[in-house]
């Protein structure tokens, strides 16, 4: 992609800026769709109707919401740490957005085709933790700080199973490059890593239960990392008002919101790329190609957005000790077993 741009515009800073802005072109419309989907699904699960007035069945409501947030007064608490308060939402968004750089949206487009893609995404998403702590502390509000502390503890704990689950995928594909991992799984639904990947039949059958477990754990840990129900202790509305973004309003709140939805897609994208073939078509070579690749990638990603929303409006919130139990005593041991078993199967 960058090469293509370079051929048009020459080697200038401009090229890189355009390349860096491209995921934004995806995130903004995606966020509108996701917000609408979230609200509509929440409503229909609860047998309500949700937005009905703005546009056909309220499809323009997210746009109206954004316009409202843009116009809103930007309140800053009097005793807040003004500088950090202003910085925090952007830091969170940067952490999320930086992750998009290594996501292969299609066989033709990846922001930065670095060899350490998986590792890179895990690393930059840790910026989000700092941003959350910053927001919580700068607000000078005890609920915000509680939310931030919980969130940080949670994200740090769940980074362990996430990283281990990534290791499983990396062991099978032999690459940390997400584009390579996606390519590895091309050629039909049977080659996806959830179903054992394109290995010899015996190995594939042996490996399948372990990859499947890893896939589920990765997805759950991902939900925990983006602080969504049932792992939304950081924003527990009934306990902490709104957690770390209690004091935010207007544009800064909109950025938090955008970052949350972007993060949801990032998690889905990682799960999709590592275990569900990324941009690879489920029908082998049929319906494949750069544009179809983009379509498949977004379709799979949106499916996981759907599942995340579905889970959110179904399950209640976990208790703190249950949260830690799930991470340390269930996910992590299971992943160790998976890593060991898969390593053994691959070596033999």
């Amino acid at each position: 992609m960058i090469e293509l741009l370079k051929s048009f515009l020459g080697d200038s800073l401009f090229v890189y800026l355009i390349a860096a802005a491209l995921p934004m072109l995806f995130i903004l419309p995606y966020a509108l769709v996701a917000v609408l989907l979230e609200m509509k699904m929440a409503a229909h699960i609860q047998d309500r109707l949700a937005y009905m007035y703005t546009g056909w069945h309220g499809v323009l409501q997210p746009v109206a919401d954004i316009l409202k947030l843009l116009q809103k007064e930007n309140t800053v608490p009097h005793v807040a740490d003004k500088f950090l308060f202003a910085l925090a939402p952007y830091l969170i968004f940067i952490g999320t957005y930086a992750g998009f750089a290594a996501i292969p949206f299609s066989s033709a487009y990846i922001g930065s085709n670095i060899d350490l893609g998986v590792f890179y995404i895990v690393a930059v998403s840790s910026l989000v933790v700092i941003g959350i702590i910053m927001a919580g502390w700068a607000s000078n509000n005890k609920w915000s700080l509680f939310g931030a502390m919980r969130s940080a503890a949670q994200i740090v704990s769940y980074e362990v199973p996430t990283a281990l689950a990534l290791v499983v995928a990396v062991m099978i594909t032999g690459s940390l490059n997400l584009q390579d991992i996606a390519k590895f799984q091309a050629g039909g639904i049977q080659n996806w890593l959830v179903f054992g990947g394109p290995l010899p039949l015996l190995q594939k059958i042996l490996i399948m239960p372990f990859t499947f477990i890893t896939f589920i754990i990765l997805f759950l840990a991902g939900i925990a990392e983006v602080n969504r129900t049932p792992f939304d202790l950081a924003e527990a509305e009934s306990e902490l008002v709104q957690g770390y973004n209690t004091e935010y309003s207007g544009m800064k709140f909109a950025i938090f919101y955008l970052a949350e939805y972007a993060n949801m897609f990032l998690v889905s994208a990682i799960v999709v790329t590592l275990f569900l073939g990324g941009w690879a078509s489920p029908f082998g070579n049929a319906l494949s190609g750069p544009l179809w690749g983009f379509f498949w990638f977004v379709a799979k990603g949106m499916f996981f957005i759907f599942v995340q929303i579905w889970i959110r409006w179904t399950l209640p919130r976990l208790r703190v000790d249950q949260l830690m139990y799930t991470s340390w005593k269930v996910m992590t041991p299971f992943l160790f077993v998976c890593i060991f078993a898969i390593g053994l199967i691959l070596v033999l």
Partner: protein
Amino acid sequence: MSEVKIYFNNIWLAFYTAAVGMRRTFLHLFTPAVTIQYPDVKLKLPERARNRLYVNIDDCIGCDQCSMACPVDCITIQTIKGTPDQDLGTTSTGQKKRLHVPLFDIDIAKCCYCGLCVYPCPTECIVMTDVYEFSEYDRSNLIYRYSIMTPQDIEQAKEKLKKSEEEAAAKKAAAATAAAAAKLAAPATSAPAAPAKTEPINPSPDAPGQAKS
């Protein structure tokens, strides 16, 4: 159960119960909504729903019973007695009206929709309707004035009453003097008859425009 068994059972339960819940919510995604688009679509109210009060002032005989029944005192009624020579018409139930009603206010903001005012009404002129959307920006707009008498009408009615009262008083005075004369002339003949005849049409002086707080 052993610890290990409990551990695995817990994990199984976590997935199983989550799956049960998610199946339920998934089915609910496709059930029709139970809520409605309220201002556009409205639920049918039950037949005897109690909402905004309505007074058919043409039927009101000014008996003040609704006002007395009201537990929150939201009904204010003033009446002016009609004079015998006036015909105030009859109600739809055929009752003869004897009182002008210059003031019939209902402060619907105070109303508690108990419906107690409806039952005592002898002419069934105060009723509860099914109108429930009558919010206002100014609270004073919620005082509904049902009287149809113009200030001139009220003035006229008052004057007429005054005149008739004066006449009655004069008559009474005349009657009294006559009675006194008669008493002097023939004690204990027509004396009891005169008060009995005058009493209903000659109330105490403060009766007209009886005010209720």
